[in-house]
């Protein structure tokens, strides 16, 4: 009995490790397949445009709401802390920097993983369950080229654009709440924002969102293609797509922060901070 109780967790850990390695392997093979097909040229316009519309245009309302609330929440949160240090005029820097480099890309990607990723996984999963993916193969077409490549391109192109919209709306709503409701000086708000938020921060945020777009598209399409049978399988694919995308977004965000920050301080070792910079 004692032997059993020891081996069971070890066995469970082994199974978990094995399924993790399998999952990563399948995802890598799927991603490799997409990149190989990208060399074969762009998808046809009549295939790509409806997908761009679905992923881009129809996500704008969600992104506007997300961006607006992130900006206002940041203003509310930072105001009390900065006011105690008599640094509320620097709120423009912290809100803009946080939005552009961190929260904008991460939260926009999270919202899009839910809205776009889950929908793609469910749509492709339903196509798999109803044999439409097999039908594409049977009619001489390549399902990855026809279904996945346009979705991948749409995510990679549009998620950074949607992130930029979320950032812009967030910056505007943060300014509106800080200056109109909380009474922060508008001129100083923008002055500090301009002083501390550099092109590098904007580039870093957009780089993140491009990679988040890649991750969301690959995970969602792979989950759809690997979907199990029936309505339960489709539901599970949609849920798994969101959960895995969210984990991927957080993991990628951490890795990119490490890489980008290291690179930044290698290039500009004398960079100043928001708290101490610009004094006098």
């Amino acid at each position, binding site marked *: 009995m004692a032997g059993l109780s020891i081996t069971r967790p070890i066995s469970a850990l082994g199974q978990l490790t094995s399924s993790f390695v399998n999952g990563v392997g399948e995802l890598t093979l799927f991603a490799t397949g997409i990149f190989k097909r990208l060399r074969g040229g762009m998808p046809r316009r009549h295939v790509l445009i409806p997908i761009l519309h679905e992923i881009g245009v129809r996500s704008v309302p969600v992104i506007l709401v997300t961006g607006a609330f992130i900006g206002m929440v940041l203003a509310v949160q930072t105001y009390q802390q900065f006011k105690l240090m008599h640094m509320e005029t620097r709120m423009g820097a912290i809100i803009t920097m946080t939005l552009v480099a961190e929260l904008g890309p991460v939260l926009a990607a999270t919202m899009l993983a839910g809205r776009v990723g889950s929908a793609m996984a469910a749509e492709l999963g339903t196509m798999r369950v109803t044999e*439409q993916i097999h*039908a594409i193969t049977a009619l*001489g077409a390549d399902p990855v080229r*026809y279904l996945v490549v346009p979705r991948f391109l749409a995510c990679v192109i549009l998620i950074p654009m949607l992130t930029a919209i979320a950032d812009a709306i967030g910056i505007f709503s943060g300014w509106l709440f800080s200056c109109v409701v909380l009474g922060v000086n508008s001129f100083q708000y923008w002055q500090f924002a301009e002083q501390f938020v550099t092109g590098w921060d904007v580039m870093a945020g957009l780089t993140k969102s491009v990679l988040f777009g890649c991750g969301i598209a690959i995970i969602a399409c792979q989950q759809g293609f690997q979907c199990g049978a029936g309505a339960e399988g489709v539901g599970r694919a949609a849920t798994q797509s969101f959960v895995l995308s969210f984990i991927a977004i957080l993991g990628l965000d951490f890795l990119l922060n490490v890489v980008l920050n290291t690179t930044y301080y290698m290039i500009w070792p004398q960079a100043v901070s928001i708290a101490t910079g610009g004094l006098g």
Partner: protein
Amino acid sequence: MTQSSSIVPAMKLSGISCVFGTQKVLWDVDLSIASGETVVIVGESGCGKSVTMKVMMQLIPQTSGELKWFGQDVGSMKPKQVLANRLRLGYLFQGAALFDSLTIFENVAFGLRHAGETDEDLIEQTVIGRLTEVGLSADIRFKRPSEISGGMQKRVGLARALALGPDVMFYDEPTTGLDPVNSRRIDDLIDSVRQSRGVTGIIVTHDLRTVQRVADRVVMFYPRAKLDDSESQVIFDGSPSELAESNDPKVREYIGDELTSGLLAA
């Protein structure tokens, strides 16, 4: 038992096995299908008949064994050759598998467009021709699959498969879920496709009336899990009348006595 003879069979399976996880669905299956014949594959649920057809179409890769299309080993073909040869094969899916985001026209035109056809007039003529061939009005082409009945969806599926002019047609449970009138209509279409085009037909079905109406040859599969390792998974291979006269208890259990007279009459 008979094994149809032809110099170059349209399909040839040699020692085909298909294993999912630990489950042996197909094990060491040999089957040869001559050009021009109509073969109906029957057997109880889970015996691997649909998997066999999907392996023949290469929608599912076999775990081991050799598959030949028109005498050529599929395993030794390059992907482009597989694609080109697959255009000689048509497949009618059980649920029709129409693309629900496309119109009926776009569904039927799908294969043509992906085969590189760019002449829109020719595409339109072909689509209307195939819809008419399966007994549908050309006006239906503007509708979506969700706007037509199950029987009509099956016929659109057949029109889509025929649009590329295949040499071999696979029919996966073509009459399942259809009323007797639509079932007969689909069986008649299978027969007329064979008569008018000389297409080789491979049909998977549970419906023994389809066997009566269209089969030149019947192949019966048996679930691998219920057999000894030495036994073949193909438990019957012969004409419909030989099926009716078979004394094999497994065959008799499947066809039942009431259908025997119908098969003998066929």
